[in-house]
């Protein structure tokens, strides 16, 4: 097995976004190369692993049991004074995935569809000719290589370089990224519910999460907005929380990571598209990025196939990629970004007032929209400009 000299599409990064791009493009008959700089796909994880059931299911006709660690029936949000807001159903509304298995499986699906997959293979630069991305330079197992392609897709995560190499500025300002740390803790009581803890003493402009992973384990993590870090680092906050709440738990994994909470980047250019975290597609309010990565990967794979068939892989041709994500991912990002700007400046008193205003809500779908509609109904002080974003159409 060796690299070919030329592919239709090279995908850099084999997370869910990259693998779905590669799978989709290969299924459409393209010659696809998928490269991953790590030696293993899916590890180390940098994720709380939660997805909404409805948004996840629409991408997969079959959801394999081994992908799912826990089916969760809802979310419990604790305001700074400890007031509980529960959003739950009797049935599963979301999943906590086992990303180590899921990510690897998606890469296998891309391979089964015909894509070449190489790990410990890192892109170090793009081949650019006449202002057009024409391929990738990299290192594989210590050997330098150059491979040409009509389209390169940057799926290289929060630390993305592909966009920058193509002249797209993807740098995140500290106010547009959450700095995160997480433990997988074993030997603790858990229910099939995700827990969220809010408060400026607990997690400034962010939150602490506890997502169940099996019978007695949970991903317990924290995200703090970069611009609010000073003195204590996220890891200190996490340790304080864990010491208080899970004194007897055993920490069996330590995880760090950054979560974009920004507007999307520019996502296309001559011969290039960006997907997933590389395109800054995470939801700025929840921090969730898995389903947006999958969705954008599917769009990028489809658009790659169309544009190669039409023999136009220029910025103009690839523009339809943005058109496609704008109406789904883009619309949600618009709302969530403004909501984030509102929440990060809300003192604990405001968070408490919101929590006091609503009781248990019955829901069938985990959505920020549904919760916000309830809150807006009961809290006329929420700025009208924000409220109107959540009005039923």
């Amino acid at each position, binding site marked *: 097995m060796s690299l070919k000299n030329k592919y239709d599409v090279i995908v850099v990064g084999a997370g869910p976004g990259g693998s779905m791009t590669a799978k989709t493009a290969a299924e459409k008959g393209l010659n696809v190369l998928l490269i991953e700089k*790590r030696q293993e796909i899916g590890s180390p994880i940098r994720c709380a692993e939660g997805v909404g059931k409805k948004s996840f299911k629409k991408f997969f006709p079959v959801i394999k049991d081994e992908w799912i660690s826990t089916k969760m029936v809802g979310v419990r949000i604790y305001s700074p004074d400890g007031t509980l807001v529960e959003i739950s159903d009797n049935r599963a509304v979301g999943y906590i995935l086992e990303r180590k298995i899921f990510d690897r499986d998606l890469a296998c699906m891309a391979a089964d569809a015909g894509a070449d997959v190489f790990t410990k293979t890192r892109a170090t630069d793009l081949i650019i000719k006449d202002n057009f991305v024409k391929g990738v330079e990299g290192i594989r197992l210590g050997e330098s290589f150059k491979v040409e392609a009509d389209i390169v897709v940057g799926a290289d995560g*929060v630390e993305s370089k592909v966009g920058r190499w193509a002249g797209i500025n993807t740098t995140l300002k500290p106010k547009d990224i959450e700095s995160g740390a997480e433990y997988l803790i074993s030997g603790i009581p858990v229910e099939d519910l995700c827990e969220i803890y809010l408060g400026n003493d607990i997690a400034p402009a962010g939150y602490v999460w506890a997502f169940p992973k099996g019978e007695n384990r949970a991903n317990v993590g924290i995200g703090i907005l*970069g611009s609010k870090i000073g003195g204590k680092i996220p890891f200190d906050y996490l340790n304080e929380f864990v010491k208080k709440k899970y004194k007897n738990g055993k920490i069996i994994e330590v*995880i760090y990571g950054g979560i974009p909470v920004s507007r999307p980047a520019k996502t296309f250019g001559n011969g290039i598209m960006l997907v997933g975290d590389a395109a800054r597609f995470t939801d700025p309010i929840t921090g969730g990025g898995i389903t947006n990565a999958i969705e954008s990967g599917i769009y990028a794979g489809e658009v790659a196939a169309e544009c190669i068939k039409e023999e136009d892989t220029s910025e103009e041709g690839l523009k339809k990629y943005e058109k496609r994500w704008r109406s789904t991912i883009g619309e949600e990002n618009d709302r969530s970004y403004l909501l984030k700007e509102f929440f990060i400046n809300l003192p604990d008193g405001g968070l408490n007032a919101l929590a006091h205003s609503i009781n248990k809500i019955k829901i069938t779908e985990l959505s920020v929209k549904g919760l916000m509609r309830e809150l807006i109904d009961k809290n006329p002080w929420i700025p009208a400009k924000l409220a109107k974003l959540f009005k039923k159409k």
Partner: protein
Amino acid sequence: MISINRYKCGYCGTCVAVCPAGAIELVGAWIEIDGESCVECNNCVKICPIGALEVSDESKK
């Protein structure tokens, strides 16, 4: 100069995302900082979830 405590670093790449100069690279299981292109904004030091990056004494002189 930014120094990396490799015993703390979890090679998560958060520092890479906030570096305006593109001076940091996540290479598989470690990070590299290119001192030449570093603009000493210290964004990486502030954002690191684990405190693995520090402004080294050399540049404080």
